[in-house]
C-alpha cells in the first residue's frame, strides 16, 4: 500500500542504510531534578520500539528530546550517522503524535492533516490527505474543526497528521490512550500494519503493557528516569532483571531466599527451608540473599498431597485465602506458613473442581520458569496501586 510512501523525498535518503535512532548517555535535568538519567538506547531502523513505564518516569521527556522540543542536558542523539542532538525540530525527519493531540484549533481536519506537507512545499495535498483520513476512518470529518470531534477522533487526526509526513522516526506519545477498547485494538493492528509496510521506525510510549507487548519488537521498561530493562517482550516477561520489571510487567511472586551457590547450570537457593534451583541465565544476583521470582500462572497448585506436574520440591502448608473466578482462569491467593500470600493463576481446564477458600494446598513450579533477583531491591517496586 502506498498510503504514506509517496512523498518522502525530502526526508529520506534511501541510499543510507542502517539509519538507527541512537541515544547515548542522554540526561535531562530540570534544576536539581533529573527527569531522564544517562539513557542509552538504540532503536534499529524500521523497528517498533515501545517505551513503557509509570506516570512521570520521563517517557514524554525522552520523546521531546528526540523530537527536538527539549535539549538534553548531556549526551547525544543521532539518526544513522547524523547527530541531531541540537538540530531544530523542523529540521528533523521526526514527527510526533502528541499526548494531548495539539491539533490546530483554527484549521479544519483536512488542513490539520495537510499542515506538515504544506510546510515542506508540497502543493497537491488533497489526495494524500483523503487517503490518510480514510486510513483513520475519518473520511467524512475533513471539513470539521477539531473541537467538533470526540477525543478518540481527535487522537486519530493527530495520528494522521504525523503519519502523512512519512518521517524516518515516528514518536507516539500514548496515541491510543483515549480510544475505547475495540477501536484501540483496531488502531493497534492498523499501526503495526503501517509500521511494517512502510518500514518506519516507531517509538511508542504507552502505559498499557499489553499494548507494548503485543505491538513492539523491543520493549524498554523505564522507571524514575532510567531504563530498567530492554528486550523482546517475551524475554522481558520471562526473565525480568529487576523487581520493578517483574512487578510492572505482569505480576510476580517474590520469595526471600538465601543463595546457596551455583550447581552446574543452575543456582541453588534456600527458600524457607526448601531448596529451589534457578537456571543460571535467570540469576540477577551475586550471592547472599535474593528474591526468588515466579509468575502466578507458572505456580501449580494441588490439595495437600495431591499430584503436581513439576519435578522440583514442593512448598507445603499453604491455605487458600481468596478465590477469584475470571472465566478462562481462576486466581487464588494462598497464605504460606511463613505468612506471605502467593498468587496462583490456574487455567480452568476442568481437570478438577475449583478449590474453595480454606482448602489446605501445596504449591510448586517448574524450575526453568523461576528467576532470581537482587535482594537489595524493593520487592514492591512497580506494583500497581491498590494491588497488594
Amino acid at each position: 500500500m502506498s498510503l504514506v510512501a509517496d512523498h518522502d523525498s525530502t526526508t529520506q535518503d534511501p541510499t543510507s542504510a542502517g539509519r538507527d535512532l541512537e541515544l547515548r548517555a542522554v540526561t535531562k535535568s530540570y534544576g536539581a531534578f533529573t527527569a531522564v538519567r544517562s539513557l542509552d538506547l538504540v532503536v534499529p531502523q524500521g523497528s517498533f520500539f515501545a517505551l513503557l513505564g509509570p506516570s512521570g518516569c520521563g517517557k514524554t521527556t525522552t520523546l521531546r528530546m528526540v523530537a527536538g522540543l527539549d535539549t538534553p542536558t548531556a549526551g547525544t542523539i543521532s539518526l544513522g550517522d547524523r547527530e541531531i542532538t541540537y538540530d531544530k525540530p523542523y529540521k528533523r525527519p521526526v514527527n510526533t503524535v502528541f499526548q494531548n493531540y495539539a491539533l490546530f484549533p483554527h484549521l479544519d481536519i483536512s488542513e490539520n492533516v495537510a499542515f506538515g506537507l504544506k510546510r515542506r512545499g508540497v502543493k497537491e495535498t488533497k489526495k494524500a490527505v483523503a487517503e490518510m483520513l480514510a486510513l483513520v476512518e475519518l473520511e467524512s470529518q475533513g471539513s470539521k474543526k477539531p473541537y467538533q470531534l470526540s477525543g478518540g477522533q481527535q487522537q486519530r487526526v493527530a495520528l494522521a497528521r504525523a503519519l502523512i509526513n512519512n518521517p524516518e522516526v515516528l514518536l507516539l506519545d500514548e496515541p491510543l490512550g483515549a480510544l475505547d477498547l475495540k477501536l484501540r485494538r483496531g488502531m493497534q493492528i492498523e499501526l503495526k500494519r503501517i509500521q511494517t509496510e512502510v518500514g518506519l521506525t516507531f517509538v511508542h510510549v504507552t502505559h498499557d503493557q499489553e499494548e507494548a507487548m503485543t505491538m513492539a519488537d523491543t520493549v524498554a521498561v523505564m522507571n524514575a528516569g532510567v531504563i530498567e530493562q530492554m528486550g523482546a517482550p517475551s524475554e522481558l516477561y520471562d526473565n525480568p532483571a529487576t523487581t520493578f520489571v517483574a512487578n510492572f510487567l505482569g505480576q510476580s511472586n517474590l520469595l526471600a531466599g538465601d543463595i546457596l551457590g551455583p550447581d552446574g547450570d543452575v543456582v541453588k537457593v534456600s527458600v524457607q527451608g526448601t531448596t529451589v534451583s534457578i537456571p543460571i541465565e535467570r540469576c540477577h544476583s551475586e550471592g547472599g540473599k535474593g528474591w526468588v521470582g515466579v509468575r502466578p500462572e507458572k505456580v501449580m497448585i494441588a490439595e495437600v498431597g495431591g499430584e503436581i506436574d513439576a519435578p522440583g520440591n514442593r512448598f507445603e502448608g499453604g491455605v487458600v485465602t481468596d478465590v477469584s473466578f475470571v472465566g478462562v482462569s481462576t486466581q487464588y491467593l494462598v497464605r504460606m506458613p511463613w505468612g506471605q500470600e502467593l498468587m496462583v493463576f490456574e487455567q480452568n481446564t476442568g481437570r478438577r473442581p475449583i478449590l474453595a477458600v480454606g482448602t489446605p494446598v501445596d504449591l510448586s513450579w517448574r524450575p526453568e520458569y523461576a528467576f532470581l533477583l537482587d535482594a537489595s531491591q524493593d520487592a514492591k517496586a512497580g506494583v500497581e496501586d491498590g494491588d497488594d
Partner: protein
Amino acid sequence: MARTRRRARFTGYWLMLPSALWLALFFLVPFYSLIAMSLYDPEGSSLTGYDMTWHFANYVDVVQAYWRPLLRSFWYAALATLGCLLLGYVLAYAIAFKAGRWKNLMLVLVIAPFFTSFLIRTLSWKLILADDGWIVNTLQAVGILGPDGRLLATSFAVVMGLTYNFLPFMVLPLFASLDKIDHRLIEAAGDLYASPARGFFKVTLPLSMPGVVAGTLLTFIPAAGDYINSELLGSPNQRMIGNVIQNLFTNQGDYAAAGALSMTLMIIITIGVVLYIRRAGTEDLV
C-alpha cells in the same frame, strides 16, 4: 419544579437590569436628543430657541463643510491604530511568551499611565516636543530636523500622541489572546516542519486574531473621535473632527451642525466596524 426552571431562565435578565437601566438613562436619552439636535432647523440659535424640523440637509451641509477634518480624523486614527498594532503586538507577545515571572509586573506597567490623567500626560508631551525642548534640539543638532523644523504642531505629533494614549487599549486584548494560546500548538507546528517564522504566521497570528480585532476597534474608534491630542499637540492644520464638533458646540452654539456631524461620525464608524468584523469573522482573513 417547573417554577424553579422558569425562575432560572429569567435570572439572566434580572442580572442585566441594572446595566440596562443605566444605558437607557445615559445612552438612549442623550442619543435621542442627539438625533433630534442633528435635525434642528439651522436657523435657530440659543436666543431664539431651536425647532426640530427634520432638516436632513444638515448632514449634507456638514459633510460639505467639514469633509477634510473628517477624512483627516480617519487617516490619523488609522495611522495611530497601525502604530499601536505594531508596537502593541511586539509588547503583548513579549509579555505573553517571554516575560516569565515578570508578566504581572509588565501588565501593571502597561496600565500604569492610567494612574494619571489623560490630559496631564498629553500636556507633558507638549513640553517634551516643545520647540526648544531637548528632543527637538537634539534632532536639529544631528540634522534630522532642519534649523526651523519642529515636532509640536505637526501631524506627527498628533499621531504620536494618539498612538501613545491608546496603546494600552491595544496591548491588553492582544495580550489576552496571545496568553491563551497553548504553547504546545507552537511546538507542534515546529514538529511539522514549520520554522519559527512560518509557525508564527500559520499558528500564533491566526490564533491571536480575536485580540487583533478587539484591539484595533478599541484603538481606532476612540482615536477617530479624539480631540485632545489634536488640540494640545497639533495646530489648526491638524484639526480633527472632534475639534470641529467641540468648537461648533461650545463656541459657536451651532447645535444642529454639531449634532449632524456627531451623527455622521457615528454612522461611518458603525458601518466600518460592521464591515470589519464581518470580514475578520471569515477564515480567509488569515
